[in-house]
């Protein structure tokens, strides 16, 4: 066990498991760089200690990729290139305030593994909209549902032409861990985007965390793929979902979540269309 029990995550929060699964692969010689987020709180305090068994650098909200760049440079200087420098950041830290820093590190092709655990809002401050909040979702700053679509971050990062980009899900642990394993074996900037359901923020029963994560994939809302040196490849169950008939309707995913409860049928349809269109693009990409 790399991530110790008895931490401050909400009941049902997948983050401890996600971190444990990551560290299981990257091992003891891992440095976690964690910007302001729910994880900052989960990581304990100077009094009670931290659940992490590897070094953690707490980071200002916008600074994690740069801190990681510095750590990577130092480890290179120390001759410890076998260590893995991981940024572990929420969707807000990744896609909003910290995005210039991420983009800069990607452009410099820094030797870091960036994991964005995406709970689709600012959860630590109590559920406010982020750029990665999906269309239609209620948050405290989108009381009538968000009007814009989710920022397609993994593809934007991929457009930086970094060696490795992948999506993952807590419901598909093997897929997730094998992506971490592959990422660990590659040098340069690697990016994994992990959909991370949040019971209080998404308004679902804590026991359903894995179920919801699964539905995201099964409905095609969250395709699992990797892009290695520009090559796009669907992974795990998503491979069969190019065929629309194999995908559950998005409604099946929305249903359990209070945050989508006020969506009108038209909005649900708009989201379904969006997902279908995304899969059309995916079909194009897989052809290449």
């Amino acid at each position, binding site marked *: 066990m790399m991530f110790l029990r008895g931490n401050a995550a909400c009941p049902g929060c997948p983050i401890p498991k996600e971190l444990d699964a990551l560290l299981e692969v990257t091992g003891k010689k891992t440095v976690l760089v964690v910007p302001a987020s729910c994880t900052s709180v989960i990581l304990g305090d100077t009094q*009670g200690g931290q659940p992490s068994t590897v070094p953690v650098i707490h980071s200002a909200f916008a600074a994690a990729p740069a801190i990681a760049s510095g750590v990577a440079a130092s480890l290179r200087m120390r001759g410890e290139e076998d260590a893995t420098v991981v940024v572990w950041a929420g969707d807000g830290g990744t896609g909003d305030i910290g995005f210039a820093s991420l983009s800069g590190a990607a452009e410099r092709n820094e030797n870091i593994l960036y994991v964005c655990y995406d709970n689709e809002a600012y959860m630590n401050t109590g559920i406010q909209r982020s750029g990665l909040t999906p269309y239609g979702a209620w948050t405290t700053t989108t009381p009538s549902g968000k009007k814009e679509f989710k920022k397609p971050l993994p593809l934007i990062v991929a457009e930086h032409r970094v060696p490795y980009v992948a999506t993952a899900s807590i419901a598909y642990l093997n897929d997730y861990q094998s992506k971490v394993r592959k990422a660990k074996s590659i040098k340069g900037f690697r990016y994994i985007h992990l959909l991370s359901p949040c019971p209080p923020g998404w308004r679902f029963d804590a026991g359903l965390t*894995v179920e919801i994560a699964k539905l995201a994939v099964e409905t095609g809302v969250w395709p699992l793929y990797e892009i290695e040196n520009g090559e796009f490849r669907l992974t795990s169950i998503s491979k069969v979902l190019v065929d629309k008939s194999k995908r559950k309707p998005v409604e099946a995913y929305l249903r359990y979540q209070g945050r989508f409860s006020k969506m009108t049928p038209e909005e649900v349809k708009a989201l379904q269309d969006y997902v279908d269109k995304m899969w059309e693009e995916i079909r194009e990409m897989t052809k290449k």
Partner: protein
Amino acid sequence: MIDLSEIPVAKPAKGSAGKTGTWRVLRPVIRYDKCTRCRLCIMYCVENTIDQEPNLYPKIDYDYCKGCGVCAQVCPTKAIAMVPEVK
């Protein structure tokens, strides 16, 4: 060497947030008669609070289990029941 008491740092500790088992409202109880030792609950317990016993049966660490119910949901044989904590 540097004096770590000067510098804000945290050291690894189980129970950094205390005995989080006290947060529990519902308690997961494994009916071992139904359990097939498939390990799914261990794999998916988001808190890492299910240990694998030498006999391969899962065992919950109630000191820290927060009672979320994920294990009960993922158990394919419905071997885990969520029962209210006695008050």
